[in-house]
């Protein structure tokens, strides 16, 4: 897992390969062939969470202090997304009451999967890690949230962040 931290800047391909392999591993190493999809998704999400925490610590090391929540979300959409996926979020919407929707029209981890509706049922597996990544990143900044993702036509997808008031 320490390899995840080292590949953050180098190349996209190793990260994508590793990500796909992790998903494969988790699903094939399930005992008795049970399809406990929920538990696998949770495992992936938790992995992402831990990586997100460490990554955010590294990225904010040299950044100025954040002014407010919106500032943090913009940072996630630009710097954070660029660091992991080499591109920014295409669209950020909010209701100014703690709900943010991040739209990525060409999500890197889905672009090799399909260009439409094929394999749509497998998409959640490929989004779980990233949901955790965002949740972990925000948690490190003191923001508690629930992150979900939805996709209707690949490779575009939307991440929805619900800030939990503590």
């Amino acid at each position, binding site marked *: 897992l*320490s390899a995840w931290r080292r590949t953050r800047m180098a190349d996209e391909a190793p990260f994508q390969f590793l990500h796909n392999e992790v998903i494969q591993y988790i699903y094939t190493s399930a005992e008795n062939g049970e399809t406990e999809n929920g538990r696998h998704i949770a495992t992936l999400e938790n992995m992402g969470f831990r990586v997100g925490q460490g990554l955010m*610590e590294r990225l904010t090391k040299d950044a100025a*202090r954040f002014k407010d929540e919106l500032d943090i979300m913009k940072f996630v959409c630009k710097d954070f997304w660029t660091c992991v996926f080499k591109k920014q979020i295409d669209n950020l919407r909010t209701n100014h009451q703690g709900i943010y929707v991040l739209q990525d029209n060409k999500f890197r981890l889905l672009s090799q999967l399909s260009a439409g509706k094929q394999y749509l049922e497998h998409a959640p597996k490929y989004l779980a890690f990233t949901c955790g990544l965002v949740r972990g990143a925000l948690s490190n900044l*003191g923001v508690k949230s629930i992150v979900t993702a939805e996709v209707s036509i690949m490779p575009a997808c939307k991440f929805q962040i619900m800030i939990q008031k503590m």
Partner: protein
Amino acid sequence: MAVCIAVIAKENYPLYIRSVPTQNELKFHYTVHTSLDVVEEKISAVGKSLGDQRELYLGLLYPTEDYKVYGYVTNSKVKFVIVVDSSNTSLRDNEIRSMFRKLHNSFTDVMCNPFHSPGNTIQSKAFDGIVSGMMVQTASTV
């Protein structure tokens, strides 16, 4: 050179605290604890002072008779506190800043260590080494 260095989590409990061995080490713990109030004050003051002070370094928190306490808060709300001897007048602001920088860098490495869980106390030899390099060396320390 510090006499005490502490790392405090965002929930205000210590992740790491190391002081020069003396008769009354508890007083350093107390000093660090009271400095947290000053840190809170400074952070909330930053919000009001029109956007300029967005630095992570907080500067001198407060001087006591024997010591001076400096603070630094990361974006992840983790606080670093350095206590130096008041008699050490040769220590300049720049040097303190670079001490905090080193601490922050080492702390980031600890956070990225997959064997470390955020929220647990820091048990990294590398971090210990960095801190040792900044502490006052006394004859009795190993």
